[in-house]
């Protein structure tokens, strides 16, 4: 048996993130149009790219209903003018969907059975809000009772309580995320991946991340009210969590709108392929996908799986924590990343160096592919070698990807 084919990232593109409300700039743009714009751009930026070689388009879509329903991946390929190529499917690993799409593509390439993928994700939370697809996890009371379901904000506050992260700790993390994102945007560090969203006339609708606030200081953050204290108390969720985590007395509700990820609209796409596909099309590989991992952990605390996912991926890669130069750990909530830093004992200055979802927004299905692109861009800029991207997800799962810059 020969060694498996290597999987390479040939390009990584994304739309800006729009504020995920009905006054956000991308609200008037259909999710399919966000992805079609990226498919078009892949062709423009890579002259040798041939749609006929695309085996599959894989999109992470957390709520695949309404505007995002009926297999958006294949529909997008058709809308972009693909016909006899670009099969497509959507997948849902909650917030890890965009990275999962890249991982599935890499695994297919490494199987040797397929060669070229467009994989990423999309979510327009202003048009298809979280929970639009229903489902027993949250909306079947019998199931939610037996699985001790709590909303993610309660889980994030539970992490902070168990780990002893104070309101000051999570707010300080948010201030730093905002500062890093604002500086990165000002310095043009997102420019390589960013593709402006345009209207049917070709005019720009949005060309920069909209949730970025340049002036979010500690005073403004500390004035915000806890987001989850009310549902924790009146909704009974604190009690559900405390029945499992009986050694803590009460849940300290430290998370607010300012230290949680911002609701956003956006899409991201990576070109993942075999060495041969790249050679045939004249594409230059930017990174090699070294390893991927998926893990599942305790679902009530829910958001602690990034560290185990990272460890699993590192083990597969034969690498140690110290080998990784840069990390992207999705900022679903500040405590998620603080816990990740503590678990893996990695220096904060190597993690989310250009900010994260607290500042930039979290378009669920797209975020995984977005942060992978940010990671590869930054590895290139700094001339570094290894990077790891990871996200926590609903249901207690974690997804991770290790890349090597080429």
């Amino acid at each position, binding site marked *: 048996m020969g060694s498996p084919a290597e999987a390479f990232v040939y390009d990584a593109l994304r739309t800006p993130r729009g504020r995920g409300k*009905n006054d956000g700039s991308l609200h*008037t743009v259909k999710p399919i149009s966000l992805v079609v714009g990226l498919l078009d751009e892949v062709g423009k930026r890579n002259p040798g790219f041939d749609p006929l070689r695309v085996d599959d388009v894989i999109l992470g879509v957390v709520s695949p209903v309404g*505007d995002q329903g009926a297999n958006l991946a294949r529909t997008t390929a058709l809308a972009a003018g693909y016909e006899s190529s670009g099969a497509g499917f959507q997948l849902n690993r909650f917030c890890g969907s965009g990275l999962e799409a890249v991982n599935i593509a890499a695994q297919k390439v490494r199987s040797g059975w397929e060669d070229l993928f467009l994989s990423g994700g999309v979510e327009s939370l202003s*048009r298809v809000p979280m929970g639009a697809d229903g489902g027993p996890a949250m909306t079947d009371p019998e199931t939610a009772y037996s699985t001790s379901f709590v909303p993610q904000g309660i889980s994030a506050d539970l992490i902070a309580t168990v780990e002893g992260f104070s309101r000051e700790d999570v707010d300080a993390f948010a201030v730093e995320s905002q500062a890093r994102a604002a500086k990165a945007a000002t310095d043009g560090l997102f420019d390589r991946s960013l593709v402006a969203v345009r209207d049917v*006339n070709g*005019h720009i609708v949005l060309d920069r991340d909209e949730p970025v606030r340049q002036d979010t200081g500690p005073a403004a953050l500390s004035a915000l009210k806890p987001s989850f204290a009310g549902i924790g108390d009146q909704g009974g969720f604190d009690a559900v969590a405390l029945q499992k985590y009986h050694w803590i007395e009460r849940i300290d509700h430290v998370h607010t709108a300012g230290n949680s990820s911002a609701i956003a609209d956006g899409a991201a796409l990576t070109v993942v392929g075999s060495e041969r596909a790249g050679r045939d099309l004249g594409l230059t590989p930017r990174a090699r996908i070294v390893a991927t991992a998926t893990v599942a952990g305790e679902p009530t605390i829910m958001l602690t799986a990034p560290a185990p996912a990272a460890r699993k991926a590192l083990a597969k890669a034969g690498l140690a924590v110290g080998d990784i130069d840069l990390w992207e750990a999705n900022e679903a909530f500040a405590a998620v990343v603080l816990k990740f830093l503590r678990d893996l004992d990695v220096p904060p200055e190597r993690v989310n160096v250009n900010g994260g979802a607290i500042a930039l927004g979290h378009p669920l299905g797209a975020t995984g592919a977005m942060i992978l692109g940010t990671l590869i861009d930054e590895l290139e800029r700094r001339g570094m070698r290894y990077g790891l991207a990871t996200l926590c997800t609903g249901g207690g799962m974690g997804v991770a990807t290790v890349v090597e810059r080429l």
Partner: protein
Amino acid sequence: MTDPNAIRWEQSTDGVVTLTLDDPGQRANTMNDAFRASLAAAVERLTAEKDTITGVIVTSAKDSFLAGGDLRQLIRVTDSDAPRFSAQIEQVKGCLRTLETLGKPVVAALNGSALGGGLELALACHHRIALDTPNARFGLPEVTFGLLPGGGGVARTTRLLGVVDALTKVLLEGNRYPPAEAVRLGLVDELAATREELLDKARAWITAHPHSVQRWDAADYAIPGGAPGSPGLAATLPALPATLRKKLRGAPLPAPHHILAPPSRAPSWIWTAR
């Protein structure tokens, strides 16, 4: 430069403001620079003096009501000044939405034809009364010029008539309806035999509906035929593009294609007027 005052303001003792479209520079009113400036000024004043106003009547001193876009200006729009032109349209749309949500009854007294932008202005009113004259026509003929109704016509006709009727009877073919047919379709609410009766009826409607809001802004308003997400309409929607393709026989016409854009499933894009 033409006199920007293309809209006359008269307030009667009962507090009703009559806005009379009367472009001094032209035989018919069109949506030119003077009109846009006048509309913005009128809407600003309505907002400022809202507390002393009981209702608004929009009518015209010409033979027709408002002919819509100035084709001489429209044809000069190029790709490079499209953003500026787009901003102008946004300004008009903003004015119409402000008028529509003023919080006072707003009635269109259509003394003659209201086509294109003219009907779009009328659609932003809460009630439309038309003078029953043989030559009057009502509709959105933009598509027949390769254009789409950009001043809220797509959003408002789909809400008013339902998605299917709005597309097939108004938007995709640009039909121009005589007064009685416009009433049957629902584009116009009632007819008047004379100009005097037209204004009397407008005033009577304001008196009878002092707290009027636009019908689709009412919480209990249901779109005729259902919103695009409703199962009944969802089953019909796929036939709309197929029927259009059949009709166009593959001709590459972008306007009708893009007119189809709004009936997507999104809850807020089409179902919140903007």
